[in-house]
């Protein structure tokens, strides 16, 4: 209690509500408890991922059989798919919404905001986030952003069709540019701007919590790997979303206020001269990709952390080179801001800068390769236990390697000349940020579910889920590399070009594999719901793990540690001892 100079008592800030709230609404809906908020984020991500996946099914079906009506779709979308036949603009709208929902509301929301919210405070030994109310605000803004985005399905011409990258001027000139480019595109921009605000607030919380609320003995070196990853992701997000938000504001102004930030003079769209002048389409691309490339790491770094945390647990030995791992994460975070131009090799920017952007892009593979080797090296001499979480973590390594390696082709301007804009790119980013991040989310779910809900998930169902998904995703995305090599352009709603005709059978194979892999996810959904209601009661530490969340009950009490903040005496990585207990928990007394 500090004594003010003027004699007035100055106390600590009012307690931030660590007593459990009483009303149902306060406890489960408008809760400031980070665990409730984390679950809310994950529930939102679940809704989003189901939505995004259904959209991709319709897209894939259309690509395989473009003229076959989709049963029932004519009723759901009478404008976009009259009689169930999908129009090109409806396909692009599905694609735009699929990309936007998946990148923002699944790959950012689940592994980062969802798991991070639930476990980061527990990992550092805190009762809650640094700013619980801001935390709650962050979730509700995210939810509102999602609703705004989805509402584009129900307005005028439907959702926008300019892709998740929303390149200007297509995204900026309004409805002359096509259906959905009116109100739908505006809603998109508003939604993303709101999402940026939410993520900035969230990142602020993550960073402040990690820096200031660590319990006694929890030095930075003893932070669990997942928390390191969330912390670094927050730093990336803090910069990336801070750039995307003003970019979206400028885009909205171009659309509704008649400014010309991104729209140059002399555009004639559908025979109409546009009343704009002087803007720069490349400016949008620079601003977007300055966010967009780091966003890839926002999606994948939490996966790195989750896998690095899970692998040692099931390998029963410490992660190889924990410090190297952290240094590599930091290196990736730093480099992620120097590479955005590799999305723009062919965009008309100065060709000299292509080489300048190519080099850091290739260099970033060094820390990524080191991390993969650390994981594989961790397996050396391990005593692997094959839980579903372990399988997904191992699967993560496999798909990340597959996705990462195709990056070599796209990072070089010379080979990008041919492969840019083809399915090779689709294959690359789906493996490296889509599938890999999803595997991270699955691994995290199977690993942490007992802690979050106090019940175990069904391992048999889990293993079926893993095997079918693992094989499925390779069948879906590996052939896309072949399509790309054959010059198959992406974002096409149908393949009418002569040279694409021979590729249609391969598209059908991918479609069947995608529908199959999608259907397999029903096993996961079923497991999730059944285990939440009827799974066996989970002990505090079912996996014999070391980090702080396993020191408290499953699920943790309201203040996480029952009024007894833990004192940390060990690192998170102490596995492999001999004796009945081969590990040392972080809070184990010396």
């Amino acid at each position: 209690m500090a004594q003010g100079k003027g004699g007035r008592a100055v106390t600590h800030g009012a307690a931030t509500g660590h007593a459990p709230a009483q009303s149902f609404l306060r406890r489960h809906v408008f809760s400031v408890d980070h665990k409730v908020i984390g679950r809310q984020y994950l529930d939102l991500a679940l809704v989003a991922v189901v939505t995004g996946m259904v959209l991709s099914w319709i897209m894939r079906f259309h690509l395989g059989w473009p003229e076959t009506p989709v049963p029932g779709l004519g009723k759901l979308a009478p404008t976009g798919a009259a009689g169930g036949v999908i129009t090109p603009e409806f396909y692009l709208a599905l694609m735009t919404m699929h990309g936007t929902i998946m990148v923002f509301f699944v790959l950012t929301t689940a592994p980062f905001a969802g798991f991070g919210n639930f476990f980061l405070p527990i990992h550092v030994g805190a009762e809650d986030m640094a700013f619980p109310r801001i935390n709650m605000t962050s979730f509700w803004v995210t939810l509102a952003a999602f609703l705004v985005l989805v509402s584009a399905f129900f307005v005028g011409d439907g959702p926008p069709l300019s892709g998740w990258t929303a390149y200007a001027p297509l995204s900026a000139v309004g409805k002359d540019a096509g259906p959905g480019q009116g109100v739908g595109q505006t809603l998109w921009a508003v939604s993303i701007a709101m999402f940026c605000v939410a993520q900035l607030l969230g990142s602020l919380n993550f960073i402040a919590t990690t820096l200031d609320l660590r319990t006694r003995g929890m030095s930075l070196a003893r932070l669990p790997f997942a928390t390191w990853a969330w912390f670094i992701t927050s730093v990336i997000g803090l910069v990336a979303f801070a750039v995307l938000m003003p970019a979206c504001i400028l885009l909205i102004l171009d659309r509704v206020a008649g400014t010309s930030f991104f729209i140059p003079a002399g555009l004639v769209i559908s025979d109409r001269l546009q009343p704009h002048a002087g803007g720069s389409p490349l400016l949008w691309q620079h601003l977007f990709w300055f966010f967009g490339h780091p966003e890839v790491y926002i999606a994948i770094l939490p996966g790195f952390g989750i896998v690095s945390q899970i692998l040692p647990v099931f390998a029963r030995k410490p992660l190889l080179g924990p410090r190297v791992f952290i240094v590599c994460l930091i290196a990736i975070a730093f480099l992620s801001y120097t590479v955005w131009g590799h999305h723009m090799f062919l965009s008309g920017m100065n060709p000299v800068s292509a080489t300048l952007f190519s080099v850091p892009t290739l260099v970033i593979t060094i820390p990524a390769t080191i991390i993969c080797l650390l994981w594989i090296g961790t397996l050396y001499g391990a005593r692997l236990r094959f839980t579903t979480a372990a399988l997904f973590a191992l699967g993560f390594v496999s798909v990340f390697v597959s996705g990462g390696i195709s990056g070599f082709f796209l990072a070089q301007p010379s080979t990008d000349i041919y492969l840019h804009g083809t399915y090779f790119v689709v294959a690359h980013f789906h493996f490296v940020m889509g599938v890999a991040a999803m595997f991270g989310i699955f691994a995290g779910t199977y690993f942490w579910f007992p802690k979050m809900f106090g019940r175990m998930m069904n391992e048999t169902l889990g293993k079926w889920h893993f095997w079918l998904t693992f094989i499925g995703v390779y069948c879906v995305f590996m052939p896309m590399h072949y399509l790309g090599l054959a010059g198959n352009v992406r974002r096409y709603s149908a393949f009418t070009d002569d040279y694409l005709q021979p590729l249609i059978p391969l598209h059908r194979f991918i479609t069947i594999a995608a529908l199959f892999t999608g259907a397999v996810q029903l096993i996961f959904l079923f497991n999730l719901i059944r285990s939440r209601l009827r799974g066996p009661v989970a002990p505090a530490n079912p996996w014999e793990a070391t980090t702080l969340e396993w020191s408290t009950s499953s699920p943790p009490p309201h203040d996480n540690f029952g009024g007894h903040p833990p004192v940390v005496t060990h690192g998170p990585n102490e596995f492999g001892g001999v004796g009945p207990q081969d590990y040392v928990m972080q809070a184990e007394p010396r």
Partner: protein
Amino acid sequence: MSTTMVPPVLTPRSVATADRGPERRVAETGVWIAIGTISMSFAALTSALVVRQSSGADWQHLHLPALLYVNTLVLLFSSVTLELSRRRLGSFGLHATLMLGILFLAGQGLAWRQLAAQNLHLATGPSSAFFYVFTVLHALHVLGGLGGLGLVERRLAAGVLSRTTFKAAALYWHFMAILWLYLLALLTIRG
């Protein structure tokens, strides 16, 4: 399976910074992070301005209303009164800061009206567009700062104000002044 529970340790609310209290750092850290991210946003807009300036030949220098310099003085003075208040924990300076902050916003509003009277609107040209974007965004951030100061005032009146909260709020407020000086310079030189 071992399910080791931690034995109760008798360190109520002990954290790494136990000697100084957890709240002490959190508010300040939060504001520093906010300063970082706000700076990044304005840096992005600055680079947008530079790119936009070279992309079209339609850039016409915007003569800033002289009122802005008066507003600048108001904002700077409000920082001084806030600092005095914080050093001596008096509420008078805080009130003054709040009033000056509101005055600054009113002044900005007046400046926008002056420009509008000269037919310089958001969509008139790139320089006016950037002017409005920068100043409105800044004003919104100042508005947020006023909210923070209002909270400080309430807590001070209730006698529950922590030094760190006050310091954090002041830090943010001073940053608003610095940000404004930067924007003024940018808009004067490149606007």
